[in-house]
Every structure is written in C-alpha cells, then in structure tokens.
C-alpha cells in the first residue's frame, strides 16, 4: 500500500503545553481515514500541526517527500488543503470571491479556475445560485459547503477536514459527508476529523481514536458497533 501521507512522531504545543503528544498516522493514496475523539482530544491540533499552523516537532511526509513544519503556504502548494474548524470562510466577501480565493495559487490561469468552479458548482449546486451573496449571510450548511468548495478550488491532492458536521442538522451533516464520500470514490485522499463517530464510520474504512492528545487505538468500523465501544477506548486511555 503506497502511502500518501505519513506522520511520524508529530507533536504540537501551545506555549509550554503539549496539546498533541508524538503521534503516528498513515493514509494511503485514495483512502478516507477518520480521526475520532471527544472535545479537547487534540484532533484540530493534529490537523493544524500537519499544516504547519501550530508549532511542534516530528515528521510529516506527503507523497514520500517531507512537508516543511513552519511554512503553511508551502504545504498548501504541495496540495494539502485544510478546511478549518469553524469553516474559516470570509464573511464580508461574496460566495464567488471566497471561491476565487480558494484558487489563489492558480494566479491568472482563468481557464483552469473556470473548470474548477464548474466542478464545485456541480458538487454544490446551491453555491451557484448564491454566487453574489455575502458569505456571512449563508446558512450554516451552505457555509460548510462553501468552505469545502473553496478547498476544492485549490485542487487538493489531500483534503483535511476539521469537523465539517459541526453545528449542522443531522440531515445536512449526512448530506455533506455523503459529498465527501463521493469525492473520495473519485480518488481524493481525505483525512476527516469528526466528533460524530457514526457518521464518519459510514465513510471511513479505518479510524484513529484520539484521547487527551494521543492516539489510543486504530480501529475499523466493525470494531465500533455502539457508542459504548468508543467510550471504552476513550476512558481506557484516561
């Protein structure tokens, strides 16, 4: 199995506090892997550390080549794109301007930008109808679609998602995760951080369980039959 992303001994700290203890993780090309865990387990920190947004130590290799630990732009240029926690959309800008910013690294290659835009609108037709609307005035679900759409504009080879279902009604959350499943079936590698384990385990063939800043288990969906199984892993670690 050829590895798309390989994380070795990655740790991260905020000031003196180590929020993520040395962690190993692997993601094969075309794979969708979930990272599950309760609040404060270090899930977001893991993604931020991979992107080089939070300082720390360790090694992250992408397509066999090391990613720099302190240069997020360089990570993004390699095609590792993050959909941040809380979506991080630009509220005072229109939907279309948000999407254009996603394709920022393309510069003035208008043909390619238009092609990606078509693809995003095919994924999320609602965004097409709302192109000129201010992003801040979208509903929560639409904002999440925009955040994912913006990331797709960047032409990711690996998509990192931080709780895309957060604050969404169950049906909407399922819809969004279904779209992620579709992207994955088309061959996109996805690392999905989720708190709603059942949703994530419908898509992922493999999941890492995080608790208090470290990976406590690597599981397959059939090992997690009920919420009790999850709780057992989390509390066994603490």
């Amino acid at each position, binding site marked *: 199995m050829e590895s798309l992303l390989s994380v070795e001994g990655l740790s991260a700290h905020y000031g003196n506090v180590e929020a993520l203890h040395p962690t190993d993780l692997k993601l094969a090309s075309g794979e969708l892997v979930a990272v599950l865990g309760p609040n404060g387990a270090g899930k977001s920190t893991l993604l*931020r550390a991979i*992107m080089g*947004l939070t300082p720390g130590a360790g090694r992250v290799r992408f397509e066999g080549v090391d990613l720099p630990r302190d240069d*997020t*732009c360089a990570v*993004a*240029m390699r095609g590792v*794109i*993050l959909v*941040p926690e809380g979506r*991080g*959309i*630009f*509220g*005072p*800008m*229109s939907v279309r*301007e948000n999407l*254009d*910013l*996603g394709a*920022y*690294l393309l*510069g*003035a290659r208008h043909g390619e930008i238009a092609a990606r835009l078509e693809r995003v609108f095919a994924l999320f037709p609602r965004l097409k109808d709302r192109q*000129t*609307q*201010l992003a801040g*005035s979208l509903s929560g679900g639409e904002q999440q679609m925009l955040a994912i759409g*913006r990331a797709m504009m*960047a032409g990711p080879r690996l998509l990192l998602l931080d709780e895309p279902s957060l604050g969404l009604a169950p049906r909407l959350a399922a819809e969004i995760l279904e779209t992620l499943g579709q992207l994955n079936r088309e061959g996109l590698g996805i690392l999905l951080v989720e708190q709603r384990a059942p949703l994530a385990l419908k898509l992922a063939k493999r999941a890492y369980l995080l608790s208090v800043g470290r990976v406590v288990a690597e599981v397959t969906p059939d090992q997690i039959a009920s919420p009790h199984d999850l709780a057992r892993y989390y509390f066994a670690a603490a």
Partner: protein
Amino acid sequence: MTLRATTLPPRKISSLYFLLPWLAGAGVLAYAFIAGGYLVTVLGFAALYAIFVTGLNFFMGYTGQVSFGQNAFAAIGGYTSAVLTATHGWPVFLAMPLGIAAAALLALLIGYPTLRLRGHYLAMATLALGMIVQEIAVQWDRVTMGYTGIAAIPALGAFGWELPNDRAQLASLLVALGFSVWVSSRLKASRLGHALAAIAGSEDAARALGIDVARYKLLAFVIAAVYAAFAGSMFAHFVGFISPEMFGLHMVVLGFTMLYVGGIGTVYGPLIGAFIISLLPETFRGFKDYQDLAYGVALIVILIYAPKGIASLSRLWTARKKEGGA
C-alpha cells in the same frame, strides 16, 4: 467590505441619495475656488489627510492590522522634502520621490520584524516607531532645526516654475488625491486586495489557502507608508513650513477618527472621513467656547447612526431589506 457583493439592482431613488453627498462636496470645493482664503487652506489639509488615511486604510482596513505609527512615515516624507529643497536647494520632483523611497525602505526594515506581532503588541511597536521618529525630528536640530522647524519650503513645481497661488496648490492636491483613491480602488479589486481581505478575515484560513500572510502584511505596511510619506511631502510644500509638532500623536488620532467616521475598509471612506472631520470644527465656529463640545457630540452622533462609517450608509440602505430575510 466589498460593495459589489449586494445583489439588489441599482434603483433610481437610492442612486440619487448616493449622488447627493458628492454634489455637496463639489459645491464646497467650487465655493472655495471662487471665494479663496481660509477655506482653501482647510480643504487643502483635508485633501492631505485624505491621502494619508487612504494609505492607513490599506493596512488597517483592507488588511485588518493596526498601526499607531504612520506619523513616522509622514514625518520622513515631509522632512526629506523640506531639508532637501529648503536647505540644499534640490528641485521638488527629486526630493519628493526620495522621501517616499526612504519611508518605504524604513517600513520594510521595521515591518519585517514587527509584523510578526499581532493586535496590541503591533499597536505598541508602531506607537514607539512614531514617537522615536518625532523625537529624532526634535533632537537632530543640525538638520531638522528642532522645534524651530524648517521654513521657506518651496511650493510644488518644476524647472524654476512654482504653482502660483493656494488655489492652484489645492487643485494639485485634489489631483493627487484622485490618483491616490483610484490606485486604492484598483488594488482593492485586484488579486492583492483579495489576499489582504482574506488575511483580515482569518490569517490561518488565508495561510492554509497558500497566501503568504507575512509578505502581504509587509506589502500593505509599505504601501501605507508610501501614502503617508507622499502626504507628508505634499504637506511640506503646501504649507511651506514644518516642525515636529505637526507629526505628533495628534496626527495619528485624527487619522483614526477620519478612518472610522468615513468607513474603515471602504474605498471612499477615508476621503469622506477626512473632509468631514476637517470641515466639522469649522462649521461649529459660531458656538465659540462650546465648539469642541459640539464637535464631540457630532462625532458621537455619527458613530451611533453610522457605526461602520459614513461610506457604509449607502450599503445599509440597500441591505436593510435583505437582512430581514437572511
């Protein structure tokens, strides 16, 4: 921040509302050109501040950072122009670009380390910069003449010819202002402008999209410094005299007031704010002892009814209906 983001089609009635303030402004300018005198000076200062604040808006409005030290760059532009022309007899068209280049260079050197700071820390660092430069202007009296200031600075001109009177000077300032605002509006709509807006929105999100946050912040800081130095240099040639007090903290506070009253982050806000704040105290002259009080009350009223600045009023007008449904 972006005006074209509203979806409502332009309506005739509201376009009349938009036009009215501009017509009023044009009326005041026309009156100044006919009547001359003191009003020309007031409007000249307004135009100079409008350039200064348009630059400040790049850094604080478009990019969402904070600087209390833009007076430093205005002082460098002003003093370079003054020393080179009045003391050494250089032509204005050489002294001015040199002052601007010096300010840009300093912004680059100072900005590189300080722009890693955020929020309050950046505010403190830039505040120190402004105070240091002003102190140098006071202490280095062999060159700057200290508190005495530099007098007999030639007016704008070239090849032995100078602008003949204050009206011609005002006209030249208005041309410079028009150019400055035009550049600002073009840059705002450009790739650079969008990158700056992304940084203002969320630095992390911008970085994760491959936007080089540090580089763009520095660029916005340098652009703001270039505008400040340009305004400072024009100031020296317009007034014919400069001294350190002109570039004190007062300049920073006034700039902030104009920026917020006019509308931070908008293209025309700085211009609107500069003219309103410059003219407001003059219109209250009849209140005599209570002039400052009236001025203060007027500022508060403006900020209550137009919390995002006067430039945003037009958008509020059109957006009001939409927000109910959104």
